[in-house]
């Protein structure tokens, strides 16, 4: 009934090549996505690098590296956000001092839940279809639609204040 995996599957060279290709082609855009989702310019690159390391460790179990890396980045953003949340005793994260400016929509983005923010970034920045957003977030397409709908409503409400 229970399987305990004792080995990390040996990396397949072709798979390594695929991962390297994803890295070369998508690293920059993934860093930007990580920044938009996490709000942390200083951590975005680290999050993406960590995601690649994790994907590499997952080995050939991952058939298509890009969605896997993307999910790993999003999970890293969530985990970092949760840790920050705990560390700050639920106080909202201060805006990045380097990027302070009169961008109320950007500020409003920080009021969204993790899922809402990720859904907004994946739809309006990465331009993914709902099916791929759902895969990246581990939810149904209907949930993606709901998340985006609620996010946009909240953003409107925030900037109308």
């Amino acid at each position: 009934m229970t399987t305990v995996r004792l080995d990390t599957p040996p990396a397949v060279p072709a798979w390594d090549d695929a991962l390297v290709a994803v890295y070369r082609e998508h690293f920059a855009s993934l860093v930007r996505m990580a920044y938009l989702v996490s709000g942390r310019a200083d951590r975005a690159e680290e999050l993406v690098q960590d995601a690649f390391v994790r994907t590499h460790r997952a080995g050939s179990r991952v058939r298509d590296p890009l969605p896997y890396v993307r999910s790993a980045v999003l999970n890293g953003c969530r985990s970092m956000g949760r840790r920050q949340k705990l560390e700050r005793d639920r106080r909202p994260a201060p805006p990045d001092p380097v990027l302070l400016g009169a961008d109320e929509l950007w500020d409003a983005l920080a009021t969204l839940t993790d899922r809402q923010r990720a859904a907004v970034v994946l739809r309006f920045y990465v331009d993914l279809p709902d099916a791929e957003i759902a895969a990246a977030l581990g939810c149904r397409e209907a949930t993606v639609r709901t998340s985006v709908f609620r996010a946009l409503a909240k953003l409107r409400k925030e900037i109308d204040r």
Partner: protein
Amino acid sequence: MTKSLLPPDRPQDDPAFEDEVRAMLARRAADVLPTSAASRAELPGVVPVTVPRGPGRDGRRRLVVAAAAVVVVAGVAAYAATLHPGAPTTQTSAAQETDPPIVWPLDDHVPADVLASPETAAGAYLSEVLELIDLSTLEPPVVDGATATVGYSLAGLQGEVALRLDGDRWGVTGATNDAVDVDLAYAADGDVIAQLTFGPAARSGMRLHLRAVTDDGAPADDVVSVLEYVDGGEITVAPPPPADGAAPPGREADQVVLLPMDPSLEHSQPMLAIILDAANTDHLAAVRLDTLVDDDADPATPDIVIGHATRALTAPPPGAVDGPSSAAPAPTTAVPAEAEAGGSPSDDAARPDDALFVGSGTAAEVAQAYLDDRLPERPDGLRLVPGAGSEQGTGAGEIADIPWEIVGGSDIDGRYSGLIRLRSDPGGWSVIAASTDQISLTVRRADGAVGVTVAWVDPGAYDSVDVDLLDADGFPVTDGEIVSWPTAGEETLVAADEGVDPSEVRSVRVRHVGGTWFSLTEVPVPEFVSTSTSTSTAG
């Protein structure tokens, strides 16, 4: 089903506002210039994962078999807990109602004046169990009535000794550290089972030395294991080196390793369970764990100890011994043949409180109905293993475990399997838990909140999961929104201030791990009591 899970189709578009959002994101994204993307030729920080030589075939078989034993123990415990959701577990009730047992000294070899203060008692204990301890690092004790803690530093890492005043003498009740701790230890059926937790100071290359301590305080040399970490993902199992070249007395030590997560993760998480095979556990009182690393300055020198932990053996968790599954009576009465197979989470007024779903027919038919209800959009290839659960229920409480698996041709990667556990109740078969191999879930109610702890055994998994809190009808109480993403091994408390009424939550389901690992694990939430209770399932 009485209501739809599906939200409305995409809501009314506001293209202008969406364009505004799109422009803002593009503008902000341009703020970030990845420092070295263009110039990197190789993946950063990726090193080949060393696969150390593992145990031989026999050893592997033993690992798998013994790991299965751990899962069975945990599963049986989960079952027992689901049978009695209001009853506190042995651990919680014991901890709250009795003083923690003293694990040192267990005889009179320590002079009374040494035990007169927590400071001196802690110092004496550390001197006895650790050869090289700088007692000048001992911190002033923090005394709270009849208990005290004394902090100290070992190889630069923080440790702590807990003590209790017994009469006029202080005794050690436990020791913890920032590297690896013992979360739980108990003896059952000739085994000593220790669950370890990795702390923030855990690192690759650690060697874990776990041994049992007898009720007279002496280390049990025949109940010992030495485990070695390699590259944060693999463990080799090495036999304990005999002190005098002779074979260790008693039976050979046996170890069970549930593969750990990456110990470099920042947070602690339960990752490792060890079983020590003991000829006789009656005389055992505690376990001690030393965490060692190489002395980098001089490889020729012995390893240095960076952490020490000790914990008393407690009573086994409910169900860990003589599981009710095996003790359940065999079916003797068939459900009327005209009963229609199927079920519902809510249409039966007599539905037991701990049932996730009830239905009539064979166990397999009810399990299938449960799948249809919970996972209408389940992956291709997800099926119940044929041939299991063909019996009708008698209503006498017998248990049926229906394995599920995802077979070839699935639209998701990986190999997944688990169990759906059912109980024959007077109203039909009740689904009382669903598990996914390698994923464990513990749920409790406490202080008006629902506490969720998820852990799994996969070195490639991410430290985040998707969890649904389900109401009595099996629908997410947040209508599809995920309240939080618990981190592995850390309890996430979901309270009313997160927009959820915890009293509505009847069960908790793990849907994904790391966004990629499929799961249908689900357990009921124990009813609220003033002290915490828990139910759990392990894959």
